[in-house]
């Protein structure tokens, strides 16, 4: 097996997170990884570092420190205004070879995956993709990653031996972010950038922002089926209270009650939310395939023999039109109490 460019003995006691930005603030996944990184760093007494590449980074650096970073490696250059794999991999590689972190975390986003993969090869090190859990072994600094496979049938615990940095990509929503502490102090390391336009093989021609919802990125979905009788307004109200999105099975889409892009299933969207609340859905297999990856699967149906109950974690037998208002009321009371 090839050796990584630096090994465990040469690695620093640090966890680094590649931080992504959107409209001048750090993205949700970046904040989630900083929170997790902070937790791991505290457990073993290590430093937490953040990598920020862009054109004007100072606010982002403050945000990173407030969310737990002890040091921020910042590279500013006009050629870093947009993500390009050529520019970003060059600069991050240089940063890594200088700082030699023990652990390097990326969000499993299109850019994160692109960069993590290329760096792993360049550094001759390993990469655990789509991890659902991370642990650091105290004393040795070995990272243990939880990776699930075969549709959830297998959970693998993967370690990397002597290879450094130990790279992992993590999906948005796996970890939770923490509240920022604006009094925190951290070190800013301004990293020199020597890039020429000829080094970059791609050029951003146009940025197009889409309208509409991507149910695959949503952590709470309230889905309605034929049993809702078209009353998706009730589901939307609940979704608004809980901060989620509304989905549907095929029949209400056919009947025109809701848009096709919200159809969940084998021929629609396959989602993996933290919570899926399925209302008035019988549970045809085409639909189940789209929603069964939910961490918590709740079903409400008036038919006790509905096939959906064979898949749901929590089964509520009853009339959706009676139960939903009760849930809404209970939530509103609870939320009022918390304020």
């Amino acid at each position, binding site marked *: 097996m090839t050796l990584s460019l630096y090994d465990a003995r040469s690695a620093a006691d640090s966890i680094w997170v590649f931080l992504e930005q959107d409209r001048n603030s750090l993205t949700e996944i970046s904040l989630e990884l900083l929170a997790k990184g902070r937790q791991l760093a505290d457990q073993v007494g290590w430093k937490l570092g953040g990598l920020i590449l862009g054109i004007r980074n100072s606010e982002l650096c403050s945000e990173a420190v407030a969310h737990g970073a002890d040091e921020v490696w910042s590279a500013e250059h006009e050629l870093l205004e947009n993500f390009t794999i050529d520019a970003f991999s060059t600069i991050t590689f240089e940063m890594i070879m200088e700082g030699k972190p023990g652990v390097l975390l990326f969000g499993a986003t299109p850019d994160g995956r692109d960069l993590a993969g290329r760096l792993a090869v360049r550094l001759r090190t390993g990469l655990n993709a789509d991890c659902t859990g991370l642990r650091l072994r105290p004393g040795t600094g070995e990272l243990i990653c939880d990776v699930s*496979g*075969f*549709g*959830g*049938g*297998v959970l693998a615990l993967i370690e990397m031996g002597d290879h450094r940095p130990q790279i992992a990509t993590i999906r948005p929503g796996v970890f939770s972010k923490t509240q920022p502490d604006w009094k925190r102090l951290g070190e800013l390391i301004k990293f020199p950038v020597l890039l020429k336009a000829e080094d970059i093989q791609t050029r951003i021609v146009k940025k197009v922002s889409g309208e509409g919802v991507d149910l695959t990125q949503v952590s709470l979905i309230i889905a309605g089926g*034929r049993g809702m009788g078209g009353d998706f307004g009730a589901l939307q109200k609940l979704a608004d209270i809980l901060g989620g999105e509304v989905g549907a099975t095929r*029949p209400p*889409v*056919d*009947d025109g009650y809701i848009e*096709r892009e919200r*159809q969940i299933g*084998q*021929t*629609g969207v*396959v989602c993996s939310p933290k919570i899926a609340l399925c209302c008035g859905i019988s*549970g*045809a*297999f*085409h639909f*189940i*395939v789209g929603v069964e990856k939910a961490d918590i699967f709740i079903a409400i149906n008036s038919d006790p023999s509905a*096939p959906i109950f*064979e898949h749901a974690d929590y089964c509520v037998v009853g009339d959706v039109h009676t139960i939903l208002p009760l849930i809404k009321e209970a939530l509103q009371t609870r939320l009022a109490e918390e304020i």
Partner: protein
Amino acid sequence: MQKSLEMMDQSGSNSYLIDEALWEKINERASGSANLCFQCGECTAVCPWGIVKEGSLKVRSILRGAQLGVEDWDKEIWLCTNCIQCQSYCPRGVQIGDIFQALRSLSWENREVEPGLPSMLWSIYWNDNPWSQPPSERFNWARGANIPEFDCQEHEFLLYIGCTSAFDNRLQKVAQALARVLTAFGVSFGCLGVNEPCCGESIKSVGHNPYFRETAESTARIFTSAGVRKLMTLSPHCYDVFKNHYRTVLQEESFEVFHYTQVLAELLENGKVSIPAGFIDRALENNYSWIDPDGVTITFQDPCYLGRRNNEFQAPRTLILGIPGINLIEMENHMQDGLCCGGGGGRMWLETPSGERFSDIRIKQALETGASILATACPFCLVCLEDSLNALGKKNLFVLDIAEIVDMAIGQSG
């Protein structure tokens, strides 16, 4: 090398480029079949898409393009369900289904396929089934049923369930019913359980030939090392692919392939078994309240992949007619003219807009017969037809697989 043929219409603006390399590719993949076409248009006329869609599916003009090497098709090649109604009417015997598959295989090479199809193939790659289900759960349908593990020394048949029936909740009931029927009839069979490999039909149906070949080779190896001599499938899709497409993968035909209706029909015809008269009692117990206790009328959906594609119209009918107390009535389109349910040719993995579903028409035809049961012999037919029936609302019609009907007639509890 390209020959350019300029064709001007009245406005002087159309020109067509004949691509010889494209022509050669299609020619090779469809075994020269497109050359036989003489553009009569029977195919477009009989295609079921004409019933549901304005303008139908222009089979003739797609064929013309394939014949010349002029790329004159787009996403419509994905509409084809491979029901081969067109092929059955073609006066020249053009293998129209194969030509559509050849065009799809080119789309894969151009990386231009319908969304959702690559994920379906990746699911087979990772999970050995197109439904993203954990392979460890493949035998869950048999829980508590004491299904024997296939042993070539002991068992005459390998009962091949197939991915869809193994995992889909509705279809698992068909698998359970079939196992009970086979046991009651003393058929010697076993299953491969969690180790049952995917037949690859869903890969073939969407035209990805290299990956189909890879999957078929791996599955064939598993069957060979398990010593399979006779294989009986639940689905006509698995049946069709084993019977007609594994020959290119295996050097010689190492196992005989049957659809389960063929196995049971043969037993009935040879007088080896008879079906008891328990159906009506069981139906009434299950609250099929519209059943006439004096005689149940059944109509039958000919699966395209068993009937028209493999010429098996009789075996399912032998079974139905062998059930005491049952009258068989045919729908308007039956046997050679059976109307596709819309699930074949990879369409189970693609969305069909409301109003364009063949199964909606088929349910109407079934209701017109006055039958109280619509019998199927294919898992895709069952799912599509039940879905259309549910969309119509409460009707005095039930969709059941033949295995379920025979199971009820035998009357053992599951």
